[in-house]
């Protein structure tokens, strides 16, 4: 085969140069042959430019990850080309190079899985996948490799969670609302991890404050799957309401546990159907056990479940009928008594034993599919190695997945170059010297030029738990806030009166003018009015004090100042994200004038994503408060914003101070000067000071209308958004 086939004549020379370079680079025949073979095909299928460009990727991979990996690149590119177009392939190649650079040992695994990944993920999701892999296994090469080899739970979930209709991903929000509507419960709903035991992946479960649902129910169509999920959460809600206490499991055999659970399931469903009869019909449709087949224990139990749920169902088997009779009698006596389940279940268990029927606990899966695995209603005693831990781990995983999904969505519509550009940008997070600022000396009345050095620090990454808590806490407040901000933004038309021209007569002004005329005075001619829509956009930079003092607990409140600052900022940020207002978040502290630290938590042009939340969660309080320099530095960012209003919102807990300053007034006066500087450029400042004796300095710095002082930190989460709204309107 001619090595140039597939290349248009004018590209052939360049192709020769490209593969000649690989041939002679010393990567070995394997690599060179692979490229030479795949090149013309790629040129024909994708385009000659990409085929030639791939040489750079091969080189990169060969140098960092070895020949074997490099030899896979051409074939992987062909595989990927079945799903990606040329622009996407360029980003794909850039992503592969990026992985080679940052996780050389993982490239092989990534390339081997190209087919699966390209099929399951659109390009933005692929980029998100790679980013997440690099981020998760930051310091752990083994974990990174497992991720790209699609062996870790996070990776599988990311790949499998896409595309499947009727799966939990698309229904989760609606299910949460449904559960809340029925039972007034709003627990987090998580997906069962892909690496969990089979039973757990196939059945719902609850415990530890959360609800776990299978990623998908196999064998159910879209509409049916939705009803099944609804049946599942409705059932779990019924347990929450009616299973008052956990059953002690000590001393019980698996069969007994299963039977007591079965009776308890029927009991709570019976109770639930008293107020919501529609639920009984919903549950009934999934009971499909039939009175035929061999009388094995598992089948009989499914039949009993159906007999208890469906009054029209008749079963010839004596045990099933006995179960139904026992249950009916116990329910007549006192359905509210949880112990009836224990009693009836125990009796039925004995019968199974006497019938010498085998019960294989390992193979047992609760029937029908909507019912939970019942781990949530049993107390396994102190050596409980089961539910709660697993559920915590699950919730953790689910949140990460959700956020990763968000990332992917946000990058849709951007071209591939930007996406991979960001990929590279996320990595260099060294602290770097950014700027020097003058400081104002109130004694001499002059600026000290280039006095402070502000460094932008990378900032720590907080624990994922804390970060995701920030992303989920107080959804009710966020919801309300978004509504309010929207309302204030798309402001209603306002009637402006007393105008010299306008679309209607201002009645009061007209009468006044008429009266004036009759009285022989000169009437005011501003007798018109008009409707105006005043919509103002506003950019906000929230500047958080992260000095040492913020880590202290405040008298009579639950957490430290910093924790509250984080929470409040997160709430505000989520509301602003919902509404689409441009905003940025930064934190600061200082250690002398040469070491003022400024941490960018979120920039104006970046989304408030899990990275931003992780940085917010990672803020640690240290050092002092040199306010003026950071106000100037933050002002630089705000100045570039093109909004109608620009606002710097400072949250601080104490008077400005630093280790190299003795004069208490010095930093206060400097900060005051910095505020004036911003004011001259049309940037508003506002300060929320958390301090009992903050009156003195906060008002001095920010002016009497530019600061509010609160003495209890607990109110900050409500107050900060309120301040924002008030400043907005």
């Amino acid at each position, binding site marked *: 085969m001619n090595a140039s086939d597939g290349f248009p004549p004018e590209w052939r020379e360049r192709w020769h140069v490209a593969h000649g370079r690989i041939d002679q680079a010393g990567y070995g025949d394997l690599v060179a042959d692979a490229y030479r073979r795949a090149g013309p095909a790629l040129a024909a299928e994708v385009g000659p430019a990409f085929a030639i460009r791939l040489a750079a990727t091969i080189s990169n991979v060969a140098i960092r990850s070895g020949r074997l990996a490099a030899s896979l690149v051409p074939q992987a590119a062909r595989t990927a080309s079945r799903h990606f177009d040329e622009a996407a392939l360029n980003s794909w190649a850039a992503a592969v190079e990026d992985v080679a650079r940052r996780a050389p040992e993982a490239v092989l695994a990534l390339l081997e899985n190209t087919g699966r990944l390209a099929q399951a993920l659109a390009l933005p999701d692929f980029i998100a996948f790679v980013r997440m892999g690099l981020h998760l296994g930051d310091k752990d090469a083994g974990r990174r490799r497992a991720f790209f080899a699609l062996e870790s739970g996070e990776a599988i979930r990311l790949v499998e969670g896409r595309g499947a209709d009727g799966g939990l991903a698309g229904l989760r929000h609606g299910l949460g609302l449904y559960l809340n509507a029925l039972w*007034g419960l709003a627990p987090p709903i998580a997906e069962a991890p892909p690496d969990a035991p089979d039973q757990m992946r196939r059945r719902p479960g609850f415990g530890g404050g959360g609800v776990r649902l299978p990623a998908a129910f196999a064998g159910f169509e879209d509409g049916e799957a939705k009803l099944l999920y609804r049946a599942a959460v409705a059932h779990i809600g019924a347990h929450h309401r009616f299973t008052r206490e956990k059953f002690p499991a000590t001393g019980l055999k698996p069969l007994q546990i299963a039977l007591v659970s079965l009776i308890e399931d029927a009991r709570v469903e019976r109770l639930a159907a008293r107020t*919501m009869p529609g639920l009984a019909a919903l549950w009934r449709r999934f009971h499909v056990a039939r009175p035929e087949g061999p009388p094995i224990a598992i089948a009989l139990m499914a039949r009993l479940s159906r007999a208890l749920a469906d009054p029209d169902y008749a079963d010839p088997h004596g045990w099933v009928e006995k179960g139904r009779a026992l249950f009916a009698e116990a329910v007549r006596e006192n359905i509210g008594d949880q112990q009836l389940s224990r009693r009836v279940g125990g009796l039925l268990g004995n019968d199974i034993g006497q019938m010498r029927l085998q019960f294989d606990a390992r193979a047992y899966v609760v029937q029908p599919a909507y019912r939970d695995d019942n781990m949530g209603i049993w107390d396994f005693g102190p050596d409980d190695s089961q539910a709660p831990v697993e559920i915590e781990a699950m919730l953790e995983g689910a949140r990460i997945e959700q956020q990763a999904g968000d990332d992917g969505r946000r990058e849709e519509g951007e071209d591939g170059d930007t996406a991979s550009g960001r990929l590279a940008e996320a990595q260099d997070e060294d602290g770097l010297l950014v700027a020097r600022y003058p400081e104002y000396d109130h004694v001499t009345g002059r600026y000290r030029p280039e006095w402070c050095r502000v460094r932008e620090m990378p900032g720590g990454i907080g624990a994922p738990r804390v970060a995701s808590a920030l992303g989920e806490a107080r959804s009710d407040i966020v919801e309300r806030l978004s509504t309010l901000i929207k309302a204030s933004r798309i402001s209603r038309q306002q009637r402006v009166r007393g105008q010299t021209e306008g679309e209607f007569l201002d009645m009061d002004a007209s009468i006044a003018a008429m009266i004036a005329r009759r009285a022989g005075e000169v009437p005011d001619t501003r007798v018109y009015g008009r409707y105006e829509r005043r919509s103002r956009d506003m950019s906000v930079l929230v500047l958080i004090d992260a000095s040492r003092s913020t880590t202290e607990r405040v008298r009579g409140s639950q957490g430290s100042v910093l924790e509250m600052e984080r929470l409040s900022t997160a709430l505000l940020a989520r509301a602003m994200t919902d509404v689409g207002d441009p905003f940025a978040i930064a934190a600061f502290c200082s250690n002398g004038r040469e070491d003022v630290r400024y941490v960018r938590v979120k920039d104006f042009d970046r989304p408030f994503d899990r990275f931003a939340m992780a940085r917010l969660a990672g803020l640690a309080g240290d050092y002092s408060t040199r306010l003026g320099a950071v106000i100037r530095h933050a002002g630089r960012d705000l100045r570039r914003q093109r909004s109608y209003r620009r606002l710097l919102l400072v949250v601080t807990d104490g008077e400005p101070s630093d280790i190299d300053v003795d004069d208490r007034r010095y930093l206060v006066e400097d900060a005051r000067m910095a505020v004036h500087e911003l004011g001259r450029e049309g940037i508003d400042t506002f300060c929320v000071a958390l301090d009992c004796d903050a009156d003195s300095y906060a008002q001095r710095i920010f002016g009497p209308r530019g600061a509010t002082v609160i003495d209890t930190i607990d109110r900050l989460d409500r107050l900060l958004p309120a301040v924002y709204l008030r400043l907005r309107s």
Partner: protein
Amino acid sequence: MTNLDAYRISSEPFYRPVESEIALFEAAHKSRMPVMLKGPTGCGKTRFVEHMAWRLGKPLITVSCHEDMTASDLVGRYLLDTDGTVWHDGPLTLAVREGAICYLDEIVEARQDTTVVIHSLTDDRRILPLEKKNEVVRAHPDFQVVISYNPGYQSVLKDLKESTKQRFGAIAFGYPSPDIEAEIVAREAGIDRRTAEVLVRIAERSRNLKGQGLEEGASTRMLINAGLLVAAGIAIEAACQVAMVVPITDDPDLRDALTGAIAACL
């Protein structure tokens, strides 16, 4: 003299007391104490005022407050005719002169500078200065101010001034307990008690979603609307859609969840 007969309520408006609100209001009325009725929309505040006005035999002048309302809309203004200017009393002034209950509905909707005109009426002065007319109107002994106030979602942006709030005694309203609510719905909509109970249960489901995307759950008023549709021969599911789901949300997930919850209650 203007005749207030048009403002008198001739037949008893149905009101089902929930707690001791009737006694409380009557006591407040004895001293003509200004009363604030707090509660979510559609829980019966306006009906309660009408009922009390009827019970006390007082005329009731209702003003629905809105953002564009000015003080002159309440107090009155000069208008012109061929002979010159003529003063026309506003609804508040009318109530003050003639001794009616003046009910300012949704007072937070009005701008704060408008609402201060009631200040001099709501303390022991009980006068209304008509600045433009250069007159001070002393309140008729029967005059009483009642305002309604929904402490719901608007309260951050729109709130009463502290100085306004502190002039009022307040009675808090909520949705009645399921039993009473079913009784009210059955009676107002003319449907049987069982259907009314189902409607109330559906309403509870929707109230669970308050704050989760719904500003407020379905109100008693909505339930009555649903009941009226049922009484007119509409199937209960469709009636709930029309009266209780579609009006309150446009979010498809929420509608879906509500629809599911309705199905669960039937």
